[in-house]
């Protein structure tokens, strides 16, 4: 009689404790609490390296089948990206408007070309329209890629770097309030923090605008036109990551 009661009590207490710990952990995590809803997931990308060759198939039927596949794939990718871009809390309003204009224009273009090619009655005309799926829109190589790069750059320029500067100021205020707590290691970390912030700012300056300025025509002329944006973002991400470690190091040393 006693044993089941005790077991039940212990079990209930255990569940209560586990629940409390779980809730406490969830509430107490500043990283997760600070994540905006939009940060939970990113713009969905096309599934891996799909074969999207522009080698135009021979014959009207084959062209029409390939066009249906290529436009459907791009329409699906754009339909995944548009809501994600709309929700992305880090994009500036101007950049979001620019990205959405491009994505919606590409979406309209894909739908229009799909209908046009399906209605074509000769292979030569269909082949010309088929090529336009790629050369006129560059959905993957330009539209989606520049959307992601602009969002990445805006997240760094609009939030990550300004918040690092805030942390830097707060740490400096803590040092100034108690100069005796400072050490050569802390001073070195503060200098490293300043250097990494400067490096991140220099790397990311103007990157979102440059990425968004790329057009399908620009890409057709130079397939590497977005590569410098990628390199700049990678450099800035690394610098921000190192600056964050510097700040954490100072914060721990001052504790």
């Amino acid at each position, binding site marked *: 009689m*006693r044993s089941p*009661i005790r077991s039940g*009590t212990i079990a209930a*207490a255990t569940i209560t*404790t586990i*629940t*409390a710990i779980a809730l*406490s952990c969830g*509430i107490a995590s*500043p*990283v997760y609490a*600070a*994540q*905006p809803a939009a*940060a939970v*997931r*990113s*713009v*969905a990308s*096309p599934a*891996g*390296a*799909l074969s*999207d060759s*522009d080698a135009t198939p021979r014959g009207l039927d084959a062209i029409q089948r390939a066009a249906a596949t290529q436009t459907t794939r791009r329409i699906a990718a754009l339909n995944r990206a548009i809501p994600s871009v709309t929700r*992305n809390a*880090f994009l500036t309003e101007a950049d979001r408007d620019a990205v959405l204009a491009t994505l919606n224009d590409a979406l309209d273009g894909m739908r229009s070309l799909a209908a046009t090619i399906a209605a074509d009655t000769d292979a030569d005309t269909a082949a010309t329209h088929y090529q336009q799926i*790629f050369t006129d829109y560059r959905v*993957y*190589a330009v539209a*989606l*890629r*520049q*959307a*992601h*790069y602009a*969002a*990445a*750059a805006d*997240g760094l320029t*609009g*939030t*990550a770097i300004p*918040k*690092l500067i805030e*942390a830097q100021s*707060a*740490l400096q205020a*803590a040092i100034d*309030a108690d100069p005796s707590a400072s050490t050569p290691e802390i001073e070195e970390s503060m200098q490293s923090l300043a250097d990494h912030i400067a490096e991140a700012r220099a790397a990311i300056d103007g990157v979102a605008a440059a990425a968004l300025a790329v057009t399908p025509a620009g890409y057709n002329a130079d397939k590497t036109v977005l590569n410098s944006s*990628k390199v700049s973002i*990678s450099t800035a*991400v690394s610098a*921000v990551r190192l600056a*964050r470690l510097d*700040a*954490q190091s100072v*914060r721990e040393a*001052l*504790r």
Partner: protein
Amino acid sequence: MRAARARQAAAATLAAVVLVLSLTGCGARGGGAGDSSTPSTDPAGDSTSISTDDRFAAVDDALADVDGALGQSETDLSAGDEAAATTDE
């Protein structure tokens, strides 16, 4: 004799109920560790701890925001690279 046994049994049952209530009710009313809505009397809430927390609250808040933005930027960078890897020729 029978009445005495009945009283003993009732007393034992009552004691068991009180024990169960006190154990299960502890978290809800007694400020147990799992009850975040109840003010804690834990010494961790003394003025020294609050002062230390306040000193670094701005740093912790700022770094949490850095983490959120940095994580999203890394995700977007990868997604951009993934899009680029899809042949669009």
